[in-house]
């Protein structure tokens, strides 16, 4: 790649490597500092599970929206002012029922609908989840605290293309009739990945 360099003996730390790349981008006029500040703000304030929660709450309460969501997730999200990066061309909403549990994994890397449900949690990116969720789905869910009855079918969705998935959990019965904003707040990231159900469901 660049054979003339004198190979240093000590591997630079991850911090040193990050600093070096940031310095290069700074020198090339790419304004990495602003990008980092913006990424902090996006991760903390914009790409929050409440986005997905709002979609789920509206799907629970508005049958026409639910139909539009199932037909074209990205357009339905846009109705709520929620966007996705350009390369995420499609969003597929997967509806759980009492007898069906949808679970999302990315065996090849760690793809997630991150603008909608938030950045992926650490365990989702770990090799263990990527290796096992697709082959030992019921066992893995049980280990994670979701002990499904044998009658519940499991569908695993491996995110191998840039289509993104989100799970629509079943609505807790005691929340029927709640206002959308209150419903949106009870929907967790883990339930939208499909490794958890909401309390009472």
């Amino acid at each position, binding site marked *: 790649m660049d054979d003339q360099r004198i190979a240093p003996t000590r591997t*630079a730390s991850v911090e040193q490597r990050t600093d070096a790349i940031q310095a290069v981008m700074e020198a090339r006029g*790419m304004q990495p500092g602003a990008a*980092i500040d913006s990424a902090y703000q996006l991760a903390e304030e914009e790409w929050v599970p409440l986005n997905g929660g709002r979609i789920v709450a509206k799907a629970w309460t508005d049958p026409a929206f639910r139909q539009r969501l199932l037909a074209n997730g990205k357009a339905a999200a846009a109705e709520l002012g929620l966007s996705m990066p350009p390369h995420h061309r499609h969003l597929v909403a997967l509806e759980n029922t009492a007898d069906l549990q949808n679970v999302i994994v990315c065996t090849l890397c760690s793809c997630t609908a991150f603008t909608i449900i938030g950045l992926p*949690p*650490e365990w989702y*990116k770990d090799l263990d989840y990527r290796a096992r969720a697709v082959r030992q789905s019921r066992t893995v869910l049980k280990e994670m605290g979701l002990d499904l009855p044998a009658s519940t079918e499991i569908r695993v969705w*491996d995110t191998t*293309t840039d289509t993104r998935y989100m799970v629509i959990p079943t609505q807790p019965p005691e929340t029927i009739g709640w206002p959308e904003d209150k419903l949106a707040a009870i929907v967790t990231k883990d339930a939208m990945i499909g490794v958890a159900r909401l309390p009472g469901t």
Partner: protein
Amino acid sequence: MDGVHDMGGRQGFGPIHYTPGAATFHAEWERRANALYGLAVRHGIFNMDEYRHGIERMDPRHYMGASYYERTLTSLATLLVEKGVVTRAELEQLAQGFVPLSAPAAPGRTNLPNRERFQPGDRVRVRDEFFAGHIRMPAYIRGKTGVVVRETPIYPFPDAHAHGVPAEDEPTFDVAFRSEDLWPQGADSALVHVGVFQSYLDRAT
């Protein structure tokens, strides 16, 4: 490529280290690494398929031992050098040490011939072939038969897009496989849905 990144179904792994509502980042540099690769993508220095392939091309020992964001960092460093944004020597001088980079890529390929348009309900077979470049076909579906659930409108063809090879965008098909067909006698019962590019599929006979 049949790399170690292709984790689906590999055994020997243990319990998921799950805590409800787990964090995304652990250290400040992880947030920066994540932001900087996104910045490079927005500047058009590389695309997401190139980024993913940059991770897949890591030395397998490094891949297995590295944290998620160290993999991000390694692909980012590799692509900045390969794209001529910086030399490895300059990067290592700035980092004050060795900067591990990924191995060079094998050649890419364009869309495959004899692509078919499938309808929901069609039985399809994933082509039994091996490609050394970037490919979004997990090995566990190679040669396996499933049922088309829906067509998803077109995407760039990863085997080309990660390698700068011209190609048409392709539809992908949501294909449902029975886990019992994927791993006979070796899997929990489930339907496994995989998004499969048109070039990877034949009609099942």
